[in-house]
């Protein structure tokens, strides 16, 4: 319910960047009532979320809030317990293996580590989806690989092996592979994790450029606030498997810059603390209030259950 509230407000006020035509646009991704449990632990509780065409949606949240799990559901790598996930108009929870395989050609994923195949060179990594899913001849594939690598600024590294690349270059190469089949949606799992600030900023730039140049829809999962505020058209804040707020970047910016006194609800205070990366606030209080010994006992019991 709260998610859809936030969503309508996004439609009303979405006037910046490509968020302008938000109300008239068909959602590229539409999630309704998504639930997921791991054993006795609820990881996602009734997630509702829409991602609109050509926007960059940033999904944020602390460690263990369920954002990576959400990404895995959106990309069909995990099956939900309940709920629907519509991607490009198709409910991926209902698709057959064959149909899902077809749909997967229309979206790309950049994994946290880049997930390049270590036994293949950078060029071969990018060529792989083209070789497997198209009937293009070797010469055409070679040219397309060059184009994709040029887009991410790695053309001169075509013949290098992944082990010879730095962390940032691996992510660029992974990105080139993700866009090999000209997808309509791009998913990014923690694109700035483990990168130095400059490289991280370059990746942010790349995400924005690619989204505009290729006219794709981007979903970025991150907890790096600098990067989130740089790239987002709209943002979504997750906490304990629940969507706290969805809205245009501006709303989150004003929340971040607001004084503690002006905010009334606990939820707003919590979001503010997260956005500012402050060490004090509702998140900290929550951590302290739950008894440490009780947690230990609970962990122990869960361990035994397993």
């Amino acid at each position: 319910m709260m998610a859809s509230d936030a969503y309508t407000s996004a439609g009303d006020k979405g006037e910046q960047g490509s968020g302008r035509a938000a109300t008239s646009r068909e959602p590229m991704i539409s999630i309704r009532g998504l639930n997921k449990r791991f054993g006795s632990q609820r990881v996602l509780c009734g997630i509702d979320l829409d991602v609109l065409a050509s926007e960059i949606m940033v999904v944020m949240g602390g460690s263990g809030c369920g954002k990576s799990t959400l990404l895995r559901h959106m990309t069909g790598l995990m099956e939900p317990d309940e709920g629907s996930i519509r991607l490009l108009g198709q409910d991926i929870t209902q698709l057959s293996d064959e149909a899902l395989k077809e749909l997967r050609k229309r979206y790309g994923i950049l994994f946290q580590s880049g997930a390049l195949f270590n036994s293949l060179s950078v060029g071969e990594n990018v060529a792989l989806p083209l070789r497997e899913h198209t009937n293009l001849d070797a010469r055409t594939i070679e040219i397309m690989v060059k184009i994709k690598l040029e887009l991410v600024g790695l053309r001169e590294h075509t013949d290098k092996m992944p082990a010879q690349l730095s962390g940032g270059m691996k992510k660029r190469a992974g990105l080139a592979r993700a866009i090999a089949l000209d997808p309509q949606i791009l998913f990014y799992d923690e694109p700035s994790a483990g990168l130095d600030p400059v490289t991280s900023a370059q990746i942010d730039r790349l995400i924005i450029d690619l989204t505009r140049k290729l006219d794709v829809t981007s979903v970025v999962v991150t907890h790096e606030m600098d990067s989130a505020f740089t790239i987002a058209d709209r943002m979504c804040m997750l906490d304990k498997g629940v969507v706290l707020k969805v809205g245009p970047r501006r709303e989150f910016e004003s929340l971040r810059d607001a004084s503690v006194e002006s905010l009334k609800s606990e939820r707003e205070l919590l979001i503010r603390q997260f956005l500012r990366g402050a060490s004090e606030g509702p998140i900290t209080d929550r951590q302290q209030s739950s008894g440490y010994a009780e947690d230990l006992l609970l962990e122990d019991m869960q361990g035994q259950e397993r």
Partner: protein
Amino acid sequence: MSASARESQQGLRRRGVLMAIGSLGALTLGYAGRLFRFAGGMSVLLGAMLGDLWVVLVLRRSRFRGEHVLSQMVRVGVRAIGIIVLVGLAIGVILPLQMYPKLDEFGQAEQIATVNAIAVFRELGPLLTAIVLSGFAGASIAAELGSMVTAEEVEALEAMGLKPVNFLVMPRLVATVLMMLMLTVIADVVMIGSGWFTGVRLGIDPDLYYHLTTEAVDLTGFGTGLVKAGIFGVLVGLIACYLGLSVKPWQGSEGVGRATTATVVYSIVAIIGADAVFTIIFYAYGLFS
């Protein structure tokens, strides 16, 4: 010692025995459960593999990755040739030397050739090759697939719409089986040759040794050995792929290490178990008469 003390000691001992039986039972049940799950998972993987082979080879709906099979064969098998030759040479020396004194007592020293030929073609060739290959191919496949899981590479494959069974398991399994067959032939030849050399050094006539060897081994003997070799290849490849892909991303290098060790152990147990089963079957069908 008083009677009551002795009694209580007996009671203690009895309780100890009962507890031992109880915990042994629990342990067995636990093992049985794990074995059941393992066998189930392996069957599912084998089923998926066969289904895939059917689609690729018979229906021709998907491409057969011949170049992947070839590169896996090189990676998995070629490096093992040296070790196989070394082990084969040693066995060819050991076997005749062990048998010679007893056979010589009966004045049948030349029968070394017969025993050596039967043992090598039917048993030792396939068995030792499989054990060496479970260390070479099995461990390296499990470690490679396990690290691919932890590096998100397997997820990336799935996300690209490429099935890990088709893309990763099939080339490795086919390569393991083919290499197993080839290496078994190499092992057979080396062991027989080395046995011949040892026999001749022990004073057996070279031509007689050769003659007895060819007499002892017919096509059935050679064939049953190769059938076993093929089955061992399937077992090693399947166990390695299954355990490698069973590593969970969050288990990291520890999970990879565990999968690698488990692959070698499970493979050797499975190989020897299957060997016993097939030897009994071949014997029952009179293939050895």
